């Protein structure tokens, strides 16, 4: 079974803290994604990585950065957490080539910034 593992299910942080969300996949996928899920807005792409050290901004990158030093690990960083970053964060991975590019998701991290 493909497994995408996010380091925390629930996280509570204070405003202004630097926050790290970690994601690891075990399927040797080239692509990894960070999405943010909010009611009525669906899944919005924050950042996308198609290879080690490669990244592309998604639709809402402001206030976030990412790191991909190894193929299996993709980290999302909130440089200075704010209350409007309270949300559910979903990590996903997929193949990048032709063919089956289904994305596999982690269980999510519910982040609350107080």
């Amino acid at each position, binding site marked *: 079974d493909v497994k995408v593992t996010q380091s925390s299910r629930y996280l509570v942080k204070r405003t202004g803290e630097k926050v790290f969300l970690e994601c690891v996949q075990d399927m040797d996928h080239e692509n990894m994604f960070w999405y943010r899920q909010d009611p009525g807005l669906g899944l919005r792409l924050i950042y996308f990585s198609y290879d080690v050290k490669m990244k592309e901004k998604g*639709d809402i990158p402001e206030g976030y950065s990412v790191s991909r030093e190894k193929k299996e690990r993709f980290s999302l960083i909130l440089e200075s957490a704010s209350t409007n970053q309270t949300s559910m964060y979903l990590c996903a991975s997929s193949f990048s*080539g032709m063919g089956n*590019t289904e994305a596999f998701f982690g269980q999510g991290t519910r982040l609350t910034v107080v």
Partner: protein
Amino acid sequence: AQSVTQLDSQVPVFEEAPVELRCNYSSSVSVYLFWYVQYPNQGLQLLLKYLSGSTLVKGINGFEAEFNKSQTSFHLRKPSVHISDTAEYFCAVSDQDNNNDMRFGAGTRLTVKP
């Protein structure tokens, strides 16, 4: 970048009635299309996918979707719904010309009433 529009944010239906959840996308020529389902308090699960070939795609739990290239649509259908189909449904498009960058719609909440 590609975008996805799910035309209905909420769809209430009675049990055993047919249902159609609508999805339109704007993108480059080469795309893969997906429907995911999220049951209450659970992660995202793939319902079905269109990669190539027949435009009518069958998925799990009796769902099917039709790819219409000229209308850039990928509507999801089920001829007879059950209470257990109550969930949020997300349409997604993957751009083959950009390493399969994947974007999602805002979601449609399907509520099946007895």
